[in-house]
């Protein structure tokens, strides 16, 4: 649960900044391809996105793991749940990181 509290608080901060970045520009502009790519190519923003990705993945999948562990109590289920949420978390982080790296590396 300590991981849950810490990642929750940290994710709140990073997501708040991520949302603010969207809100300070007009909505339709914020979704235009060039503007989005330009944001990704700012190294600080890319790092922010990566931290949002990691923190939310850990917080979310740990929450799912907590809920699933409460449903059944046998060793096989517990191992399955831990493995499943860990793999899902790594997969989502991996897939999101791939997007961030590719888009931030795209030449202007």
């Amino acid at each position, binding site marked *: 649960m300590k991981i849950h509290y810490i990642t929750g608080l940290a994710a*709140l901060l990073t997501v708040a900044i991520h949302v603010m970045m969207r809100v300070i520009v007009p909505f339709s502009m914020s979704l235009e391809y060039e503007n989005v790519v330009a944001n990704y190519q700012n190294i600080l923003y890319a790092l922010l996105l990566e931290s949002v990705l990691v923190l939310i993945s850990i917080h979310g999948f740990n929450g799912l793991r907590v*809920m699933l562990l409460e449903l059944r109590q046998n060793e096989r289920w517990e191992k399955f749940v831990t493995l499943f949420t860990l793999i899902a978390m790594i997969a989502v982080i991996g897939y999101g990181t791939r997007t961030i790296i590719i888009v931030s590396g795209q030449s202007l």
Partner: protein
Amino acid sequence: MEALKNKKDSNAWTNREGLRGWLNPTRYGWERLSYWLMRVTGLFLLLYFVGHVYETSNLVGGINAWNAMLELTQTTFGHIFLILVIGASTFHSVNGIRLIFAETATGLGKPGRPDYPYEAGSLNNIQRSGIWVALILAAAAMLYGSSVLFGGE
């Protein structure tokens, strides 16, 4: 208790509420409602998050792939969904902060000598107001989101 010695019989009469115990939030007051909402919004946001990571990966496919994705998501249904996401994330965050305080016994009062009508000191309006603030802020955020998404700039 011969019947209880038979494991199969005892399973039939365990009387555990099971998942039904999680699903009805209305019987035990604000804190139980908050527990239910945290679980529902948490799961909802997890699903949204996975979808969001997939949807933004369309950037890799170039402008055409990105615009095709926008056509799917920038619809009335997409906007309503996003407003729900805004509400869920606001409630989950603000109530989460309240829970961090409450689960470390901040704002719950101190043990004392109970007296009739034996009401619990921890279920007080100080920590409960965190739930109300979270709900109000979520509603306000949803209203703001609606004004941006549906009302234009």
